[in-house]
């Protein structure tokens, strides 16, 4: 991309000669993959719900599948954003909802219950990835190792001297105005 941007720069502006390494933590890469997967699955659920309900023997639940699709897309967008941690936790919660919905289809009368079992198995695997991603992208504030700065007033002559000097200036200004 920067080749194009280089062309647009003025004569005296620096242009990239060699790009340095990109710093992307592995957890962010996982979040990115899960985010795109979520958007893809969400789009499928939103636009082809009948295909999904037929495969799972859950005909009549198309509205529910569409709602789940919207949820997946929103979780995906969040997982791709700087708030990836919230996105991944929302995916973990979504996995729970998906599992609950599929469990309700695991009945003796469902001719496609083998597909449902397979879907449940996949959700289990993905939920593990989601959970791992959510754990690893958490911004841990390192409470135990926090440094405090009680000695950094910024006033070399001390806080009291700074306050006194300010008061003097203010009273002087007031006196000269009156």
């Amino acid at each position, binding site marked *: 991309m920067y080749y194009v941007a280089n062309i647009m720069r003025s004569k005296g502006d620096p242009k990239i000669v060699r790009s340095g390494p990109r710093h992307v933590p592995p957890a962010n890469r996982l979040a990115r993959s899960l985010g795109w997967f979520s958007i893809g699955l969400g789009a499928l659920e939103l636009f082809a719900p009948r295909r999904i309900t037929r495969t799972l023997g859950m005909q009549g639940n198309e509205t529910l599948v569409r709602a789940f699709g919207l949820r997946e897309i929103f979780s995906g967008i969040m997982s791709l954003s700087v708030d990836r941690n919230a996105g991944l936790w929302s995916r973990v919660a979504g996995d729970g909802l998906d599992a609950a919905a599929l469990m309700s289809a695991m009945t003796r009368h469902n001719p496609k219950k083998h597909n449902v079992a397979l879907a449940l198995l996949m959700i289990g695997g993905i939920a593990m990835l989601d959970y791992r991603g959510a754990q690893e992208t958490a911004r841990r504030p390192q409470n135990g190792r926090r440094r405090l*700065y009680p000695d950094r007033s910024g006033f*070399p002559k001390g806080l009291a001297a700074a306050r006194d000097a*300010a008061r003097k200036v203010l009273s002087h200004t007031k006196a000269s105005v009156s």
Partner: protein
Amino acid sequence: MKALVWHGKEDIRCDEVTDPQIEDPRDAIIKVTSCAICGSDLHLFHNFIPGMLPGDIMGHETMGEVVETGDGMDGKLKKGDRIVVPFTIICGQCEQCKRGNFSVCETTNRKRHLAEKVFGHTTAGLFGYTHLTGGYPGGQAEYLRVPFADTTHIKIPEGLSDEQVLFLSDIFPTGWQAAAQCDIEPTDTVAIWGCGPVGQMAIRSAILLGANQVIAIDCLPERLSMAEAGGATVIDFKTESVMDRLQELTDGRGPEKCIDATGMESHVMPSQPDTILDRAKQMLMLESDRPHVLREMIYLCRPGGVISIPGVYSGFSDKIPMGALMNKGLTVRTGQTHVNRWTDDLLRRIADGEIDPSFVITHTVDLEHGPEMYRLFRDKQDSCVKVVLKP
């Protein structure tokens, strides 16, 4: 030379780039001796402000030594001078510059057509801060070309360290302007939301301008401890009710003067449900800012008071309580900092030992470690408040 270059959202790299060249007689090139990562650089890191292109060099808090000048310096700047570079590029000749409104200089934005479309009028060119403000390469690099260098500089006398004067480029005058435009009176309580670097400077400025009481609001222990050291009474918004504490500390009247040193990225948490809605809208590109602090300030400021906004907002904010703002007769003052309006006075205060802005520095690293420091600063890891880079 090496420089920290923006490649996309959360993607800043230390690249090898060509050296800058003089383009205009009023240009100068400096060898950067110190530069810093600003809180507003994080908005670019998150790609929340439009107008960045891959290959843009970051940074607008820079100082160094002049190594080359154009022919049009008129003796104002020469090789070997040590200067701090204000983040606003100023011509010194237009009507706005003559009035001291340097951050809305009418000349220096070389992509003024973009600014005019977005803001209605052009504003000054800024270093390393999107193509809306000129697309000028920033100062997180080994060398920097300073356009309009004969006016865009603060000459540093001998005897002052880089750390003492570097923040004259942005955060110190920004905190100062935020307090100065509050017109502080000796009986005033000044409440400051956000104890990042600008908030810390605003606290010290409010003290030096004679505020009776300064209250600082944040949730990070290291920042609150630094605020307390600077003379502020602190409120931790994660464990206390900001409204109850402010009422208690002002005998139920509310603070007369409020400063928003947070800007467009208010902390998102369930106890502030509006921030969750804002974040959702931001993600869906239905809103560009999260103005929780602004809403809170309007609600809590004493009627007739002043709201000062140094925090950066990028575009559109929803649900601003205009009814409260109007009926309480609040005055809103904001703007990018007119850096050179304040720097003579602030440099004198530093030289006189009234204040030493270096108190805010918690991390000093070389340029190659810059990309990691962006993440560390963003994630508030290792008690980070301010990062200085040494190219």
